């Protein structure tokens, strides 16, 4: 059991659900649909998958000795977003002058090792997944590969389905081998 508090939302995470659990299926379907939306560059539709009070964080990973308390920096991140800043990023990508993604990257979000956990809040599901992002730009440049683990919280919607309330992505590299982070993880 662990207690988390993000953006005022508190919940306790319980035991892992079986992969046969309907909640697990729902979380899996959400992640698969989200990956396709991202790789189709349908970023407005991606925004619709997020709660109004979403938090989205990619902390800086560091190399530390075994036994050190942690290997992410608590006060530094590559992304630490809310709905406003994510919306601004997408609005920018939609201008004619966002050179970082023009021509657009070809991306593939490979999402695997999905595990789902009940919480003590009936409308919240905790989900972890592994991410391997392939990103190709231009013609013959080596592609970027970003590997990491996502810790998500999904919130059930009154009209059915889920939206993303919280995402933390812990990347597996301390030095990003990518010229920029102009795509979402």
């Amino acid at each position, binding site marked *: 059991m662990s207690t988390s508090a993000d953006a005022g939302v508190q919940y306790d995470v319980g035991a892992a659900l079986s992969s046969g659990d309907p909640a697990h299926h729902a979380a899996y379907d959400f992640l698969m649909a989200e990956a396709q939306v991202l790789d189709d560059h349908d970023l407005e539709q991606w925004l619709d998958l997020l709660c109004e009070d979403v938090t989205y964080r*990619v902390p*800086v990973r*560091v*190399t*530390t*000795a075994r036994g*050190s308390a942690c290997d992410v*920096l608590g*006060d*530094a*991140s*590559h*992304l*630490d977003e809310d709905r*406003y*800043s994510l919306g*601004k*990023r997408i*609005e*920018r990508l939609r*201008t*004619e*002058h*966002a*050179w*970082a*993604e023009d021509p657009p990257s070809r991306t593939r979000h490979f999402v695997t090792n999905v595990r789902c956990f009940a919480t003590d809040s009936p409308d919240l599901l905790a989900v972890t997944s592994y991410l391997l992002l392939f990103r190709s730009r231009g013609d013959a*440049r080596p592609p970027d590969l970003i590997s990491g683990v996502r810790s998500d919280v999904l919130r059930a919607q009154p009209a059915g389905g889920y939206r993303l309330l919280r995402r933390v992505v812990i990347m597996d590299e*301390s*030095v*990003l*081998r*990518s*010229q*920029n*982070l*102009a795509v979402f993880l």
Partner: protein
Amino acid sequence: MTDHDDIITSVRSGILPAHIYNDADLFAAERESVFAKNWLFLAHESEVPDRGDYVVRQQLGDSFIVSRDESGEIRVMFNMCLHRGMQVCRAEIGNTSHFRCPYHGWTYKNDGALVGVPFFKEAYGGEDELRRSDHSLLPAPAMEIVNGLVFVCLDPDAPPFSSRLGEFRDYLDFYTRPGPDGVEVRGPQRWRLPANWKIGAENFAGDTYHTPHTHLSVSEIGLMSDAKGGKRKGGTMYFAGGGGGATFPLAPGDLPSRLGVIGYTDEMIKRRAETWPVTISALIGKDGQIPSAATIFPNLSFLHLWARVSESQIVPFTTMRLWQPVSEQETEVVSWFVVDKAADEEFKRASYKAYQMCFGPSGMFEQDDMENWSSITRVAGGTMARRLQLNNRMGLRTDDSTIAEPLTNFSGPGAAYGGFGEFNQRRWFDLWCRDLESGPIDTKKTTSYPTSEGDDREHER
């Protein structure tokens, strides 16, 4: 005479042979003649606040441990065991009293002193035969700390950092001395950019001409609505001693009101007014110009801007970054967030958010710079780039006179121009030519100074 005389002559005339942005021979010369002779930034004191704290930093092929020893002193030590050359520290951040080499177990205190040698008596005959005090981790040949910024120089005979920095010192205070307590830094973020290191360094030194076009999207979405070209044209470019930068024009007002509009609190403004050099206060308060980007030669850059972090809040931020060369076509960018140490947590959080929305690998300004700079580097490596001469002469007539006169009413140190021009890029390249022309240092010189007993440095051949 060097192998690069033709390049130096051309660059000094304001014409850049395009291949200088992707040339392995030139990069080898830069390593010996630029990076081995200049003062290089490694870390900020606030990254190692407590005794035993350390970070490990690279500059080109060299790895340095920056630690705070048991007496509270900052130490910079070459991360290589004196026995068989293993890196004694392989983490990048942590806290330890000792560094123990994983290979054979030689153990050093966090001030570099060798204290442990396995089987010391049996293997080496003890202290009579191997003086441990002669085997401390190699210190940086020269080190200076300014405003908490730790600089090293690999040339023990280099002029002191303060003389190299010269009049740029006031601008350094603008970025890193906003009050008596100074700044703290967060991060760094590190990422590998497939671009030559010079491009970022000279861009931050004063390329105001790229802002209206490269960063048009940022003003279109209202992140920093003032970034439009018309505004930029009202700014200035200055070069002072070892560095240069640009300023951004502010709306009418005085020092407090102008800093207030971009999001500083009254208390932070008061601290700045009491701490900054008078030149900086006058530059902002009287001239209505606030420093934006700047570079200290060769590869340390600074930036101060402000951004809208929510519909209702504009917040200023400061960042500092190294363009750390990996090869002629790859650079590791190391980017820190810099903030007034005495600011409250709420300001620090909001200011970090503003920084991250604008700079760093995900920053909406910086993303587009990276796309441009990697593209330049890629095409600079071919045969055609050996024939192409790039124009670095903006602001000059064909007879080398300047289109505009230097500003006479500029309150900051150094020579300044208004409008657009490549004055700063040419000054930056003058320093680059100076170093390439004078050639490599004698690396046979070694340095040592006693650890645990103060800072007396000795040079020995």
